[in-house]
Protein backbone atom coordinates (compact mmCIF):
# COMPACT_ATOMS: atom_id res chain seq x y z
CA UNK A 1 0.00 0.00 0.00
CA UNK A 2 1.42 3.32 -1.00
CA UNK A 3 1.03 6.55 0.88
CA UNK A 4 -2.33 7.20 -0.70
CA UNK A 5 -5.55 6.89 1.26
CA UNK A 6 -9.16 6.43 0.41
CA UNK A 7 -11.60 9.26 0.51
CA UNK A 8 -14.75 7.89 2.13
CA UNK A 9 -18.21 9.38 2.18
CA UNK A 10 -21.08 7.80 4.05
CA UNK A 11 -24.28 9.30 2.72
CA UNK A 12 -27.87 8.94 3.93
CA UNK A 13 -30.97 10.17 2.14
CA UNK A 14 -31.14 13.41 4.02
CA UNK A 15 -27.56 14.15 4.99
CA UNK A 16 -23.93 13.22 4.71
CA UNK A 17 -23.22 11.05 7.73
CA UNK A 18 -19.47 10.92 7.63
CA UNK A 19 -16.66 11.93 5.33
CA UNK A 20 -12.95 11.51 5.75
CA UNK A 21 -9.76 9.69 4.86
CA UNK A 22 -9.35 6.00 5.42
CA UNK A 23 -6.72 3.35 4.84
CA UNK A 24 -9.13 0.49 4.39
CA UNK A 25 -12.81 -0.20 4.19
CA UNK A 26 -14.54 -3.52 4.75
CA UNK A 27 -18.10 -4.07 3.65
CA UNK A 28 -20.41 -6.99 3.15
CA UNK A 29 -22.04 -7.15 -0.24
CA UNK A 30 -24.59 -9.69 -1.33
CA UNK A 31 -21.70 -11.78 -2.64
CA UNK A 32 -19.68 -11.78 0.54
CA UNK A 33 -17.29 -9.68 2.54
CA UNK A 34 -15.14 -7.31 0.60
CA UNK A 35 -12.13 -5.25 1.58
CA UNK A 36 -11.18 -2.11 -0.27
CA UNK A 37 -7.70 -0.66 -0.21
CA UNK A 38 -6.43 2.41 -2.03
CA UNK A 39 -6.10 1.75 -5.73
CA UNK A 40 -9.09 -0.55 -5.98
CA UNK A 41 -10.72 -0.89 -9.37
CA UNK A 42 -14.01 0.92 -9.99
CA UNK A 43 -16.78 -1.07 -8.37
CA UNK A 44 -20.48 -0.83 -7.78
CA UNK A 45 -21.75 -3.26 -5.20
CA UNK A 46 -25.02 -3.86 -3.48
CA UNK A 47 -24.66 -4.04 0.29
CA UNK A 48 -26.45 -6.72 2.15
CA UNK A 49 -27.49 -6.02 5.69
CA UNK A 50 -24.60 -5.40 7.98
CA UNK A 51 -21.98 -2.98 8.98
CA UNK A 52 -19.33 -1.20 7.03
CA UNK A 53 -16.00 -1.01 8.81
CA UNK A 54 -13.88 2.00 8.03
CA UNK A 55 -10.25 2.03 9.15
CA UNK A 56 -9.55 5.73 9.27
CA UNK A 57 -6.26 7.34 8.36
CA UNK A 58 -5.58 8.17 12.00
CA UNK A 59 -5.77 4.49 13.00
CA UNK A 60 -9.30 4.54 14.31
CA UNK A 61 -12.12 2.24 13.33
CA UNK A 62 -15.55 3.55 12.50
CA UNK A 63 -18.57 1.34 12.11
CA UNK A 64 -21.38 2.48 9.90
CA UNK A 65 -24.72 0.81 9.44
CA UNK A 66 -25.89 0.93 5.86
CA UNK A 67 -28.73 -1.50 5.44
CA UNK A 68 -29.88 -2.05 1.92
CA UNK A 69 -27.61 0.50 0.42
CA UNK A 70 -24.83 0.34 -2.11
CA UNK A 71 -21.18 1.05 -2.42
CA UNK A 72 -19.29 2.68 -5.23
CA UNK A 73 -15.55 2.88 -5.66
CA UNK A 74 -13.70 5.00 -8.16
CA UNK A 75 -10.43 6.91 -8.16
CA UNK A 76 -9.83 6.16 -4.49
CA UNK A 77 -13.18 7.62 -3.57
CA UNK A 78 -15.63 5.37 -1.83
CA UNK A 79 -19.26 6.28 -1.47
CA UNK A 80 -21.33 4.26 0.96
CA UNK A 81 -24.92 5.16 0.20
CA UNK A 82 -28.01 3.98 2.04
CA UNK A 83 -31.34 5.62 2.61
CA UNK A 84 -30.90 5.28 6.34
CA UNK A 85 -27.19 5.13 6.93
CA UNK A 86 -25.90 5.90 10.39
CA UNK A 87 -22.77 5.54 12.45
CA UNK A 88 -22.60 2.93 15.15
CA UNK A 89 -20.82 4.26 18.19
Amino acid at each position, binding site marked *: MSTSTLEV*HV*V*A*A*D*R*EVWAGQATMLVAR*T*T*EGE*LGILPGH*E*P*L*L*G*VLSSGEVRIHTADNGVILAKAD*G*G*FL*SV*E*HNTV*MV*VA*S*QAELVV
Partner: protein
Amino acid sequence: MGAQLRIYRQKIKSAQTTKKITRAMELISASRIQKAQTRMNSAAPYTKALTRAVTAVAVGSNVDHPLTTQTETPRRAAVVVFTSDRGLAGAFSSQVLRETGELGEKLKSEGKEVVYYLVGRKAVSYFAFRQRKWERDWIGGTDRPEVETAQEISDAVIEHFLKSYDEGGADEIHLVYNRFVNLVSQVPSALRLLPLEVVEAEADAEIPTGHDVLPLYEFEPHGFEVLDKLLPVFIENRIFAAMLSSAAAEHAARQKAMKSATDNADKLIQNYTRLANNARQSEITQQISEIVGGADALVSAK
Protein backbone atom coordinates in the same frame (compact mmCIF):
# COMPACT_ATOMS: atom_id res chain seq x y z
CA MET B 1 -68.21 58.67 21.66
CA GLY B 2 -70.14 58.74 18.43
CA ALA B 3 -71.44 55.59 16.78
CA GLN B 4 -69.42 56.18 13.63
CA LEU B 5 -66.22 56.62 15.55
CA ARG B 6 -66.84 53.47 17.54
CA ILE B 7 -67.26 51.42 14.40
CA TYR B 8 -64.01 52.71 12.97
CA ARG B 9 -62.17 51.92 16.19
CA GLN B 10 -63.55 48.38 16.07
CA LYS B 11 -62.36 47.93 12.53
CA ILE B 12 -58.89 49.19 13.40
CA LYS B 13 -58.73 46.76 16.32
CA SER B 14 -59.70 43.84 14.15
CA ALA B 15 -57.19 44.75 11.44
CA GLN B 16 -54.51 45.01 14.09
CA THR B 17 -55.31 41.56 15.43
CA THR B 18 -55.21 40.08 11.94
CA LYS B 19 -51.94 41.81 11.30
CA LYS B 20 -50.42 40.28 14.41
CA ILE B 21 -51.37 36.80 13.26
CA THR B 22 -50.22 37.19 9.68
CA ARG B 23 -47.01 38.81 10.82
CA ALA B 24 -46.29 35.88 13.13
CA MET B 25 -47.02 33.40 10.35
CA GLU B 26 -44.75 35.32 8.02
CA LEU B 27 -41.88 35.16 10.49
CA ILE B 28 -42.43 31.46 11.19
CA SER B 29 -42.41 30.65 7.48
CA ALA B 30 -39.32 32.74 6.95
CA SER B 31 -37.44 30.74 9.54
CA ARG B 32 -38.76 27.43 8.17
CA ILE B 33 -37.66 28.20 4.62
CA GLN B 34 -34.11 28.25 5.89
CA LYS B 35 -34.53 24.81 7.40
CA ALA B 36 -36.28 23.42 4.35
CA GLN B 37 -33.56 24.77 2.09
CA THR B 38 -30.87 23.28 4.27
CA ARG B 39 -32.64 19.94 4.06
CA MET B 40 -32.82 20.21 0.30
CA ASN B 41 -29.13 20.96 0.13
CA SER B 42 -28.09 18.22 2.52
CA ALA B 43 -30.01 15.69 0.45
CA ALA B 44 -27.98 16.67 -2.60
CA PRO B 45 -24.96 14.37 -2.01
CA TYR B 46 -27.26 11.35 -1.87
CA THR B 47 -29.07 12.34 -5.04
CA LYS B 48 -25.78 12.96 -6.76
CA ALA B 49 -24.32 9.62 -5.71
CA LEU B 50 -27.47 7.79 -6.77
CA THR B 51 -27.76 9.52 -10.12
CA ARG B 52 -24.16 8.78 -10.83
CA ALA B 53 -24.51 5.14 -9.89
CA VAL B 54 -27.67 4.63 -11.92
CA THR B 55 -26.08 6.31 -14.90
CA ALA B 56 -23.02 4.12 -14.49
CA VAL B 57 -25.05 0.92 -14.48
CA ALA B 58 -27.25 2.05 -17.31
CA VAL B 59 -24.28 2.98 -19.44
CA GLY B 60 -21.87 0.29 -18.30
CA SER B 61 -24.14 -2.69 -18.67
CA ASN B 62 -26.65 -3.33 -21.36
CA VAL B 63 -29.55 -4.46 -19.30
CA ASP B 64 -33.24 -3.98 -19.64
CA HIS B 65 -35.26 -3.53 -16.56
CA PRO B 66 -39.05 -3.53 -16.14
CA LEU B 67 -38.86 -0.05 -14.64
CA THR B 68 -37.15 1.38 -17.71
CA THR B 69 -39.18 -0.45 -20.32
CA GLN B 70 -41.82 1.52 -22.06
CA THR B 71 -45.11 -0.09 -22.97
CA GLU B 72 -45.90 0.33 -26.63
CA THR B 73 -49.34 1.76 -26.10
CA PRO B 74 -49.65 3.18 -22.61
CA ARG B 75 -53.31 2.99 -21.59
CA ARG B 76 -53.29 4.07 -17.98
CA ALA B 77 -51.26 6.75 -16.28
CA ALA B 78 -50.94 7.49 -12.58
CA VAL B 79 -50.34 11.02 -11.39
CA VAL B 80 -48.88 11.79 -7.97
CA VAL B 81 -49.93 15.24 -6.80
CA PHE B 82 -47.98 17.10 -4.12
CA THR B 83 -49.91 19.85 -2.34
CA SER B 84 -49.80 21.22 1.18
CA ASP B 85 -51.75 20.25 4.27
CA ARG B 86 -52.59 23.78 5.26
CA GLY B 87 -53.82 26.74 3.32
CA LEU B 88 -52.90 30.41 3.64
CA ALA B 89 -50.07 29.94 1.20
CA GLY B 90 -51.39 31.94 -1.71
CA ALA B 91 -51.75 29.98 -4.92
CA PHE B 92 -49.46 27.20 -3.74
CA SER B 93 -51.90 24.31 -3.81
CA SER B 94 -54.24 25.65 -6.46
CA GLN B 95 -51.47 26.12 -9.01
CA VAL B 96 -50.40 22.51 -8.57
CA LEU B 97 -53.99 21.35 -8.89
CA ARG B 98 -54.41 23.44 -12.02
CA GLU B 99 -51.25 21.88 -13.46
CA THR B 100 -52.64 18.47 -12.54
CA GLY B 101 -55.86 19.25 -14.36
CA GLU B 102 -53.95 20.25 -17.48
CA LEU B 103 -51.78 17.14 -17.36
CA GLY B 104 -54.87 15.00 -16.82
CA GLU B 105 -56.55 16.53 -19.86
CA LYS B 106 -53.45 15.97 -21.94
CA LEU B 107 -53.15 12.33 -20.89
CA LYS B 108 -56.83 11.74 -21.53
CA SER B 109 -56.55 13.27 -24.99
CA GLU B 110 -53.78 10.74 -25.65
CA GLY B 111 -56.28 8.06 -24.82
CA LYS B 112 -55.05 7.18 -21.37
CA GLU B 113 -57.01 6.52 -18.28
CA VAL B 114 -55.79 8.64 -15.37
CA VAL B 115 -55.58 7.61 -11.72
CA TYR B 116 -54.43 9.88 -8.94
CA TYR B 117 -52.27 9.59 -5.86
CA LEU B 118 -52.66 12.56 -3.54
CA VAL B 119 -50.22 14.02 -1.07
CA GLY B 120 -51.45 16.76 1.25
CA ARG B 121 -54.85 17.58 2.71
CA LYS B 122 -55.57 20.28 0.14
CA ALA B 123 -55.47 17.84 -2.77
CA VAL B 124 -57.71 15.42 -0.93
CA SER B 125 -60.34 18.03 -0.14
CA TYR B 126 -60.19 19.32 -3.72
CA PHE B 127 -60.85 15.84 -5.09
CA ALA B 128 -63.43 14.97 -2.45
CA PHE B 129 -65.38 18.17 -3.11
CA ARG B 130 -65.52 17.40 -6.82
CA GLN B 131 -66.35 13.77 -6.10
CA ARG B 132 -63.43 12.56 -8.13
CA LYS B 133 -61.82 9.27 -7.36
CA TRP B 134 -58.28 8.76 -6.21
CA GLU B 135 -56.21 5.71 -5.52
CA ARG B 136 -54.50 6.56 -2.28
CA ASP B 137 -53.58 9.59 -0.22
CA TRP B 138 -51.00 10.69 2.28
CA ILE B 139 -51.92 13.41 4.72
CA GLY B 140 -49.72 15.17 7.22
CA GLY B 141 -46.15 16.32 7.25
CA THR B 142 -46.04 18.06 3.90
CA ASP B 143 -44.14 20.91 5.47
CA ARG B 144 -41.56 18.54 6.87
CA PRO B 145 -41.32 15.47 4.65
CA GLU B 146 -39.97 12.23 6.05
CA VAL B 147 -37.98 9.63 4.17
CA GLU B 148 -40.46 7.01 5.34
CA THR B 149 -43.34 8.73 3.56
CA ALA B 150 -41.30 8.90 0.37
CA GLN B 151 -40.61 5.20 0.76
CA GLU B 152 -44.32 4.42 1.14
CA ILE B 153 -45.23 6.47 -1.89
CA SER B 154 -42.53 4.95 -4.04
CA ASP B 155 -43.43 1.42 -2.96
CA ALA B 156 -47.05 2.10 -3.83
CA VAL B 157 -46.37 3.57 -7.26
CA ILE B 158 -43.77 0.97 -8.20
CA GLU B 159 -46.18 -1.79 -7.24
CA HIS B 160 -48.86 -0.13 -9.29
CA PHE B 161 -46.50 0.31 -12.22
CA LEU B 162 -45.35 -3.31 -12.23
CA LYS B 163 -48.87 -4.67 -12.39
CA SER B 164 -50.17 -5.37 -15.85
CA TYR B 165 -52.91 -3.24 -17.35
CA ASP B 166 -55.55 -5.92 -16.87
CA GLU B 167 -54.81 -6.11 -13.19
CA GLY B 168 -55.29 -2.38 -12.94
CA GLY B 169 -51.66 -1.44 -13.29
CA ALA B 170 -50.44 1.87 -14.67
CA ASP B 171 -48.14 2.20 -17.65
CA GLU B 172 -46.80 5.59 -16.71
CA ILE B 173 -46.21 7.47 -13.47
CA HIS B 174 -46.14 11.24 -13.38
CA LEU B 175 -45.29 13.66 -10.60
CA VAL B 176 -46.79 17.12 -10.21
CA TYR B 177 -45.23 19.35 -7.59
CA ASN B 178 -44.15 22.89 -6.85
CA ARG B 179 -40.53 23.27 -7.73
CA PHE B 180 -38.65 25.62 -5.43
CA VAL B 181 -36.71 27.96 -7.70
CA ASN B 182 -35.96 30.71 -5.23
CA LEU B 183 -37.68 32.62 -2.47
CA VAL B 184 -40.03 34.46 -4.77
CA SER B 185 -40.63 31.89 -7.43
CA GLN B 186 -42.23 28.46 -7.11
CA VAL B 187 -43.01 26.81 -10.38
CA PRO B 188 -45.59 24.04 -10.61
CA SER B 189 -43.95 21.36 -12.68
CA ALA B 190 -44.91 17.97 -14.01
CA LEU B 191 -42.43 15.26 -14.82
CA ARG B 192 -42.67 11.67 -15.87
CA LEU B 193 -41.14 9.41 -13.25
CA LEU B 194 -41.74 6.02 -14.81
CA PRO B 195 -40.78 4.44 -17.08
CA LEU B 196 -37.37 5.93 -16.47
CA GLU B 197 -35.55 7.22 -19.44
CA VAL B 198 -32.13 5.76 -19.17
CA VAL B 199 -30.63 8.32 -21.46
CA GLU B 200 -29.96 10.63 -18.59
CA ALA B 201 -31.17 13.80 -20.19
CA GLU B 202 -32.77 14.12 -16.80
CA ALA B 203 -35.19 16.86 -15.97
CA ASP B 204 -33.01 18.03 -13.15
CA ALA B 205 -30.97 21.05 -13.86
CA GLU B 206 -30.65 21.30 -10.08
CA ILE B 207 -28.43 18.27 -9.82
CA PRO B 208 -25.24 18.69 -11.71
CA THR B 209 -23.69 15.33 -12.46
CA GLY B 210 -19.94 15.17 -12.70
CA HIS B 211 -18.83 15.91 -16.22
CA ASP B 212 -15.89 13.56 -16.10
CA VAL B 213 -16.15 10.30 -17.93
CA LEU B 214 -17.54 7.45 -15.88
CA PRO B 215 -15.06 4.70 -15.25
CA LEU B 216 -15.80 1.16 -16.25
CA TYR B 217 -17.30 -0.32 -13.15
CA GLU B 218 -17.11 -3.81 -11.90
CA PHE B 219 -20.56 -4.83 -10.73
CA GLU B 220 -21.19 -6.91 -7.74
CA PRO B 221 -23.16 -9.10 -7.85
CA HIS B 222 -24.27 -8.43 -11.40
CA GLY B 223 -25.34 -5.57 -13.65
CA PHE B 224 -29.00 -6.44 -13.62
CA GLU B 225 -29.20 -7.08 -9.91
CA VAL B 226 -27.41 -3.85 -9.11
CA LEU B 227 -29.86 -1.98 -11.32
CA ASP B 228 -32.74 -3.88 -9.80
CA LYS B 229 -31.62 -2.71 -6.39
CA LEU B 230 -30.74 0.83 -7.40
CA LEU B 231 -33.78 1.83 -9.42
CA PRO B 232 -36.37 1.62 -6.63
CA VAL B 233 -34.04 3.60 -4.40
CA PHE B 234 -33.55 6.11 -7.17
CA ILE B 235 -37.29 6.49 -7.63
CA GLU B 236 -37.78 6.88 -3.91
CA ASN B 237 -35.14 9.56 -3.98
CA ARG B 238 -36.86 11.40 -6.82
CA ILE B 239 -40.07 11.39 -4.83
CA PHE B 240 -38.31 12.56 -1.71
CA ALA B 241 -36.61 15.33 -3.67
CA ALA B 242 -40.00 16.41 -5.00
CA MET B 243 -41.37 16.44 -1.46
CA LEU B 244 -38.48 18.49 -0.13
CA SER B 245 -38.76 20.95 -2.97
CA SER B 246 -42.49 21.20 -2.47
CA ALA B 247 -42.02 21.79 1.26
CA ALA B 248 -39.54 24.60 0.69
CA ALA B 249 -41.84 26.09 -1.92
CA GLU B 250 -44.77 25.87 0.49
CA HIS B 251 -42.95 27.89 3.13
CA ALA B 252 -41.82 30.44 0.57
CA ALA B 253 -45.34 30.79 -0.81
CA ARG B 254 -46.79 31.14 2.66
CA GLN B 255 -44.26 33.76 3.61
CA LYS B 256 -45.08 35.75 0.50
CA ALA B 257 -48.83 35.45 1.05
CA MET B 258 -48.54 36.43 4.70
CA LYS B 259 -46.31 39.35 3.85
CA SER B 260 -48.91 40.80 1.51
CA ALA B 261 -51.63 40.12 4.08
CA THR B 262 -49.62 42.05 6.66
CA ASP B 263 -49.08 44.92 4.24
CA ASN B 264 -52.75 44.92 3.44
CA ALA B 265 -53.67 45.05 7.14
CA ASP B 266 -51.32 48.00 7.51
CA LYS B 267 -53.07 49.83 4.73
CA LEU B 268 -56.48 49.11 6.25
CA ILE B 269 -55.36 50.37 9.63
CA GLN B 270 -54.06 53.55 8.06
CA ASN B 271 -57.26 54.19 6.12
CA TYR B 272 -59.50 53.52 9.08
CA THR B 273 -57.36 55.70 11.32
CA ARG B 274 -57.85 58.58 8.88
CA LEU B 275 -61.59 58.00 8.78
CA ALA B 276 -61.74 57.71 12.57
CA ASN B 277 -59.86 61.00 12.96
CA ASN B 278 -62.24 62.59 10.54
CA ALA B 279 -65.25 61.30 12.44
CA ARG B 280 -63.81 62.45 15.76
CA GLN B 281 -63.10 65.90 14.40
CA SER B 282 -66.58 66.34 12.98
CA GLU B 283 -68.01 65.16 16.28
CA ILE B 284 -66.02 67.82 18.12
CA THR B 285 -67.07 70.44 15.61
CA GLN B 286 -70.66 69.48 16.10
CA GLN B 287 -70.37 69.61 19.87
CA ILE B 288 -68.79 73.07 19.75
CA SER B 289 -71.46 74.38 17.46
CA GLU B 290 -74.08 72.91 19.76
CA ILE B 291 -72.51 74.65 22.79
CA VAL B 292 -72.16 77.93 20.95
CA GLY B 293 -75.71 77.66 19.67
CA GLY B 294 -76.95 76.88 23.21
CA ALA B 295 -75.05 79.83 24.68
CA ASP B 296 -76.43 82.12 21.99
CA ALA B 297 -79.93 80.97 22.74
CA LEU B 298 -79.41 81.63 26.47
CA VAL B 299 -78.04 85.13 25.77
CA SER B 300 -80.89 86.07 23.46
CA ALA B 301 -83.46 84.70 25.93
CA LYS B 302 -82.34 87.16 28.62
